[in-house]
């Protein structure tokens, strides 16, 4: 599929500016026929020419950038492949054109789809709750039992004129006793519905947060300042950055102790987790205003649930920025060639904290390797996700089973790595490790999460995880997809479900 929307956008803006192809071409110093090829997406465009066209059209370059549109195209492709929607291959063929021509409408369709998923999940969750809730089941049984006793005894009283006084009194007392029990059962049922928290968490709030983070390019300069401010102050004091963070964390704990939720018999919280948790809590005070401004300024965070999740994500970002200040972390990453063990050791952070930080090295003019980030549990449930423009991570179904994020569970603690080629032809280096999360105990099941990073193959030479893999040999690259529903590789032995749209 054609992955360039920029040509269509140039055409749309040119027409809006009432310019002919000839007029625009002459302003930017190219031939009208070349501009025609660009607008028809038959020639790639980037760099200086794109800047000149943006200037000639009187718009900013980002308005011609197609990154956010591709995110919508990828999401709409998932919509088309959803069995409940069952789009056709015609939809799939024309989706990019649709988004290119009508980005606002495409966005609206996507919002509608998200709302549909949310309502669907709410209905399913409530139905499940009503049919399985033990209190409700027990209450209904209790009520039916009382009604049975009352009905049976009252029928006896009604239809048997020859009852002795003792029998009459006995059956009347049954009616009275079971009526009272029925009242109690009915009242507690009514209270249950009054008090029950029947709200359903928005399933797509997480997605709105994904969009917000993606639109911000997973980089928040305001929060980076927090980390760098600490670094400068600490440098002036002559003490090490880490020693001062430790002191600050200890002071905070003394002033406002915040014990972690302990599990009896389990290992105590690790020093790294504790430090991160406390810094995240401190961020609410130190960067609360900044975070609130960022969250409320984003049109993507329309619901309270999404704003709450985003606030938590940004406080975690601030904690990471303090622990791993941008410039020293980027320098160390380049020096260690993005070796996560070396970085987590140098900055005294967990593997996951270091991995997530790598995906935030997006400061304009000082970017690190571009990484997508994904975290999954062993059942395939994705709990964190950051896409790259050409590597969409699936939102509504499981990822390709060939991704190393899953094979990493086979050997927890070891790094699984591979080059993968998407059906689009784009190649990426994937590397993942399953790490233990939270308190551990002999009697508990291990809580493993797989952390995966992926970078475009052209950048993989800067990354230690590509070492030893012969990139010139095509056999070292695994043909992968993003998700089975959208994957055209018909003969793949790992296919979990049929492709719905090819």
């Amino acid at each position, binding site marked *: 599929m054609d992955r360039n929307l920029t040509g269509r956008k140039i055409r749309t803006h040119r027409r809006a500016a009432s310019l002919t192809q000839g007029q625009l071409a002459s302003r930017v110093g190219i031939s009208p026929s070349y501009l025609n090829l660009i607008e028809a997406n038959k020639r790639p465009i980037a760099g200086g020419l794109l800047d000149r066209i943006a200037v000639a059209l009187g718009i900013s370059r980002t308005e011609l950038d197609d990154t956010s549109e591709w995110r919508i195209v990828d999401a709409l492709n998932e919509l088309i492949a959803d069995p409940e929607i069952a789009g056709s291959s015609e939809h799939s063929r024309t989706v990019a054109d649709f988004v290119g021509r009508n980005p606002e409408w495409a966005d609206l369709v996507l919002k509608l789809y998200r709302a549909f998923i949310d309502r669907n999940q709410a209905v399913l969750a409530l139905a499940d709750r009503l049919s399985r809730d033990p209190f409700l089941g027990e209450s209904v049984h209790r009520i039916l039992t009382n009604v049975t006793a009352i009905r*049976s005894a009252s029928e*006896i009283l009604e239809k*048997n004129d020859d009852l002795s006084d003792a029998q009459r009194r*006995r059956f009347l007392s049954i009616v009275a006793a079971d009526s009272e029990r029925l009242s109690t059962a009915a009242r507690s049922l009514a209270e249950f519905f009054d008090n029950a928290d029947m709200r359903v968490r928005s399933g797509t709030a997480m997605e709105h947060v994904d969009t917000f983070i993606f639109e911000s390019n997973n980089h928040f300069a305001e929060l980076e300042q927090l980390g760098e401010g600490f670094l400068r102050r600490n440098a002036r004091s002559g003490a090490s950055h880490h020693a001062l963070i430790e002191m600050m964390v200890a002071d905070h704990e003394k002033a406002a102790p915040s014990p972690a939720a302990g599990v009896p018999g389990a290992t105590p919280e690790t020093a790294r987790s504790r430090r991160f948790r406390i810094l995240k809590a401190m961020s609410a005070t130190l960067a609360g205003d900044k975070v609130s401004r960022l969250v409320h300024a984003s049109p993507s965070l329309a619901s309270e649930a999404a704003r709450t999740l985003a606030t938590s994500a940004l406080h975690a970002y601030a904690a990471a920025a303090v622990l791993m200040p941008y410039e020293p972390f980027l320098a160390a990453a380049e020096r260690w060639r993005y070796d996560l063990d070396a970085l987590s050791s140098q900055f005294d952070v967990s593997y996951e904290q270091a991995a997530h930080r790598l995906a935030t090295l997006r400061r304009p003019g000082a970017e690190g390797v571009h990484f997508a980030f994904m975290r999954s549990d062993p059942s395939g449930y994705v709990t964190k996700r950051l896409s790259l423009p050409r590597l969409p991570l699936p939102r509504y179904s499981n990822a390709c089973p060939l991704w190393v994020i899953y094979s990493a569970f086979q050997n927890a603690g070891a790094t699984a790595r591979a080059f993968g080629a998407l059906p689009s032809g784009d190649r990426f280096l994937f590397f993942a490790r399953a790490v233990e999360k939270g308190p551990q105990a002999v009697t508990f099941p291990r809580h493993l999460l797989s952390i995966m990073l992926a970078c475009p193959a052209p950048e993989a030479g800067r990354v230690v995880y590509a070492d030893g893999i012969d990139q010139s040999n095509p056999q070292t690259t695994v043909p992968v997809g993003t998700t089975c529903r959208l994957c055209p590789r018909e003969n793949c032995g790992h296919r979990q479900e049929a492709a719905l749209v090819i």
Partner: protein
Amino acid sequence: MSKARVLIVEDEPNIVESLSFILGRAGFDIETAVDGAEALQRLRRQVYSALILDLMLPGINGFDVLRSVRSDGELKDMPVIVLTAKGQAADRQAAEAIGATAFITKPFSNAEIVQRVSELTGG
């Protein structure tokens, strides 16, 4: 002719009392058990023409009692009327698979109980 003997297995004493009364008046000889263990004890000692069995019993539940009855050479043909509550379709299917003869749904009418027990005991 001797009266048909019926065992009621139900843990709700008020329901047991009413059932005993109406079936007694209808000419049946009634015995009762309040849980599965007592029911199995009585079934081993005594011959019954029919069993009225609630599914939700403390300890050994109605399903287990029904399973024991159907796997016992002497009891396997005994009519078993299972008491179910409305909305327990899954329980009903499970009891049917084990070999329940008939079902009566709570809250039932007395006449319905008498009629079903009479049909199944040839009364």
